[in-house]
């Protein structure tokens, strides 16, 4: 109970903020977080560009499995599905998705395996088409694009799911990839996919849905691992640089937490780390 009283006291006492900033908790510190992360990223990208070696990204089994999955689809002569329901063009999940899509579409074009993308946002469907065409072009197979390669299904959760479940049973893909933010449909998608015997790779940051993907998929990328794919798959040192910057960000977070914990033990009322973050 005392914990709550303390918090209530902290809330009651308003911190003075710099005049031009919006008067909300974390307005100034949040601003600096964004700036610091941008500067860090810029720094590591520039040093990667100038040829400084970047550390390697640790092994992510789910991403290594993509080649195997596409290979099996080729052997069986069945399509590869890659789907996301919620992400629009402004969503960070789409940004991550395009990394997977470019890679998988290129592999599929090389092996002459049908590739299907199912999108829940009509704006994203249009962009996905561009990403896939570009990959086909790079693989030297611009003719591989079919009118039904990118399928928009309206983003009404269960209408979308019923359509995808139906497609899974009718077209029996050998590999399915569920990338991005999913809600309760995760269980249906993953289990129907498992029933048709597809190799399944899932990646989501929705912690509530991760257990279902873990239960029914062969490989699951947990949380943030979803975002690392673009850099991991392309092996582009500059993209790796952004991951290094992000890791430095994590080290800063850890440092702040440890420092904050020490300050909390010494004097809970005057915890400067806490005040700094609230500022």
């Amino acid at each position, binding site marked *: 109970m005392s*914990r709550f009283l*303390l*918090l209530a006291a*902290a809330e009651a006492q308003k911190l003075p903020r710099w005049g031009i900033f919006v008067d*909300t*908790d*974390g307005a100034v*510190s*949040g*601003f600096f*977080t*964004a700036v610091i992360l941008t500067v860090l990223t810029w720094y590591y990208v520039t040093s990667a560009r100038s040829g400084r070696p*970047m*550390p*390697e*990204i*640790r092994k992510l089994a789910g991403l290594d499995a993509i080649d195997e999955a596409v290979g099996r689809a080729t052997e069986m002569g069945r399509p590869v599905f890659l789907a996301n329901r919620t992400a629009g*063009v*402004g*969503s*960070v999940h789409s940004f991550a998705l395009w990394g997977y899509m470019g890679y998988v579409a290129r592999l599929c074009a090389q092996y002459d395996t049908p590739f299907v993308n199912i999108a829940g946002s009509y*704006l994203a469907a*249009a*962009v996905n088409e*561009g990403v896939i065409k570009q990959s086909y072009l790079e693989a030297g197979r611009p003719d591989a694009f079919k009118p039904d390669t990118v399928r928009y299904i*309206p983003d*009404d959760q269960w*209408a979308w799911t*019923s*359509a995808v479940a*139906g497609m899974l*049973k009718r077209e029996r893909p050998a590999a399915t990839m569920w990338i991005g933010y999913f809600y*309760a449909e995760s*269980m249906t998608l993953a289990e129907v996919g498992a029933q048709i015997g597809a190799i399944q790779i899932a990646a989501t940051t929705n*912690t509530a849905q*991760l*257990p279902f993907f873990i*239960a029914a998929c062969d490989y699951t990328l947990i*949380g*943030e*691992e979803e975002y*690392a794919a673009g850099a991991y798959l392309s092996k582009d040192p500059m993209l*790796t640089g952004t*991951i*290094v910057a992000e*890791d430095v960000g*994590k*080290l800063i*977070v*850890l440092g702040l*937490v*440890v420092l*904050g*914990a020490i300050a*909390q033990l010494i004097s809970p009322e005057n*915890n400067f*780390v*806490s005040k700094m*973050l*609230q500022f």
Partner: protein
Amino acid sequence: MTAELQTWIGVIATLAIFSFLIKENPFYRFFEYTVIGMSAAHAVVMTWDNYTKPFWVNGVMKGEYYLLIPGAIAVLYYFRYAPPKYQWLYRYPLALIMGYNIGYSLAYDPRPFMTQIRGTFESLKDLNSFIYLVIFIGVVVYFIFTFGNKSAAVGKTRTFARYAMMMYFGVSFGNTVQGRFSLLLGRLLFLLQDWLGLVKLG
């Protein structure tokens, strides 16, 4: 009568969808395609009624002329389905929307993030809060991709974090089971109570 017809369609739809559990069949397919068609239309109708029309009538017509510029740029998006020569035009509205969203989340997302970090140490006082802190640090270390990949200590921390995460997923799974059965109960009640009238609850 019409309400009754609605219930009957509901019952048939329910049974058709459930039949998918046994086998994919035309009965299911009919409802699948009908509902996709309807919800695609519904999405357009809702956007038309809630955005396009009010924006035009209450916005542009009432003097918010600045809206016409993004509106005109947005039209370029349709060039995605134009002949290849003009397709590149769709990149302009795309660039604007992406820029807006990136700026928006870079500005807003750090604020709750700060509260979350503060929350890890501000309640530090008993054994539980120390366990909390240790697990939190372990999980953050698990997600560091590039540093310490050869260090044994980091490796052990990651294994520990992985076990903690598996516990989390187990708990999360177990808790969700309840909700999913609630939903199925709801559907069974629809069949047993509203349609067949076998039971009466609530």
